[in-house]
């Protein structure tokens, strides 16, 4: 797969959640340029062209939005967020944090690190579908990024 025009980078370790999210995005024609990575380590390798993705690109990848789950094995979402927002080349990439819990103690930490949004994945299907659709619609179509 070419990685030149990645719209969405989905970082999600739970394959069921990932599948549901991708399904909804696809339903709304927003999954055409979607990359799904399975943990934080892979996400960073992809963005900064290291490890598995070494030598693939000169510049870091700049997807239109990163959907980033917080709870992940190895490198968690907060660490990934920190690395993306710390690098001037990737700082402007919008990052939406995904969490399962309304009472997550990390919400403040995420905003402090520069997260652009924070989404609690609803249990109910309609809610989740709606949230994913709105998310894709906003970040892919409405949000204006600084020109390169």
């Amino acid at each position, binding site marked *: 797969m070419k990685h030149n025009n990645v719209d969405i980078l989905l970082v999600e370790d739970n394959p*069921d959640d990932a599948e*549901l999210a991708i399904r909804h995005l696809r339903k709304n024609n927003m999954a055409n340029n979607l990359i799904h990575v399975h943990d934080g380590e892979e996400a960073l390798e992809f963005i900064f062209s290291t490890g598995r993705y070494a030598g693939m690109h000169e510049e870091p990848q700049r997807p239109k939005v990163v959907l980033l789950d917080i709870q992940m094995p190895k490198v968690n979402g907060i660490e990934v967020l920190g690395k993306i927002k710390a690098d001037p080349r990737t700082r402007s990439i919008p990052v939406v944090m995904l969490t*399962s819990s309304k*009472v997550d*103690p990390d919400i403040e930490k995420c905003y402090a690190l520069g997260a652009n949004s924070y989404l609690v994945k609803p249990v109910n*299907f309609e809610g989740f579908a709606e949230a994913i659709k709105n998310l894709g619609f906003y970040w892919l179509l409405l949000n204006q990024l600084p020109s390169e």
Partner: protein
Amino acid sequence: MFLINGIVLLTAGMAFFGNEFYSFKKTTVEKLSTIGKIIAANSTAALAFDSPDDAREILAALRAEPHIVAACIYDKNGKIFSEYYAGNEKSKFPPSPGPQGYRFSYTHLDGFVPVMQETLPLGTLYLKSDMGALHAWLGLYAVVVAVILLVSFLLAFVLVRFLGKSISTPILALSQTAKIISDRKDYTVRAIKMSNDELGSLTEAFNQMLDQIKKKDDNLSEFNQNLELKVRDRTAQLETVNKELEGFSYSVSHDLRAPLRAIVGFASILEEEYAGRLDVEGKRITAIIKKNTMKMGRLIDDLLEFSQMGKHDGMKVTINMGRMVNDIKDAMALQYDTHRISWSMGDLPNVNANASMIRQVWVNLIANAIKYSGKNEAPQIEIGAMTKEGEYVYYVVDNGVGFDQQYSEKLFKVFQRLHSPEEFEGTGVGLALVKKIITREGGSVWAESEVGKGACFYFSLPARNEIRVNHQ
């Protein structure tokens, strides 16, 4: 001490002196009057026979009394008949006899004595005594009194010094010991016993008291130390348990919700994308799966809310209860069908508590009242309060389905419900939350009801002093 001594001595001296002065004067007058009487009696013949020489001789007898400086006899016409002078100096006599009796002037005592034969007045005797004796006596007396005063004063001074020392030294020592103890909080210090008198036993009693205080102080500090250790241990334990609990609720909220999301999600995909291949029963079963999964999600959310509640202690403010309840009532109209309800509101006293927690209590109680009276054709909800022994008791009464009073305690336990979900929706957390909040705020909750006759939920809050006003 010396001042009092001096005043007492001086007053006594003055009184003594005054008394002596008065009695001396009296004696002097009496003495002069006796002499006067004798001379007057002896002079009757001289006057009767008009013999000034006899009279002079009689008067000359006054030489025996050196204080009588002059004397004279007037005839019955008031003319001087005969004169006497103690010295060479001739004093002036009053030109005519004055009224009978003796009078003191500053320098002299003089008097007139009538000379009578039977009842017939023949003339008047005049006697003049100088006050030399009195003055001499007074001077001597003043010296004596002054000496006595001085000696007693000195004696008193010595006594006070000596006795005072024997009393004040042990007392001063005692008070110094007390001061050292209170300054250093050192109960091992003891007062030194100086004598075997009352002060000695006072010192002993003082020391015994210190022994007891020391013993109690030792016990107390030992107890305190143990307590501190215990508190430290318990705090550490509690912190560990708290951390574990936090981790637990975190993983409950994350890990339990994820599979539920998948179940609902994929069941929904079945419903949407495989609708054509599912028969009616298949669709019903898929719907049941979804409904129960969603309920599980709500239960997890409510349980989490319950366990998280009160983790962050909010500030206590004065809550305008009337306004808060009205706000909630208005908000309820958006969520429930409330237009059939007839509300009645009593006066609600303001209270000092955590506003968001108390709001949650009212929301849960009022929502319950709306929910359980919803099947009544004319639902009524009454909200009010009463004051009882330093606390306010608020209540919410409805005319809904009510409950069996014997289960009223169960109502306030988590997941305990008295109605099936088919009758009334709910997870059984609302009233448990109410109880938890009110207990934390220092009050209590209880409920009264009869099946079919509505229910009344009470909660009490301490009527504390209102400090801050919260205008929300």
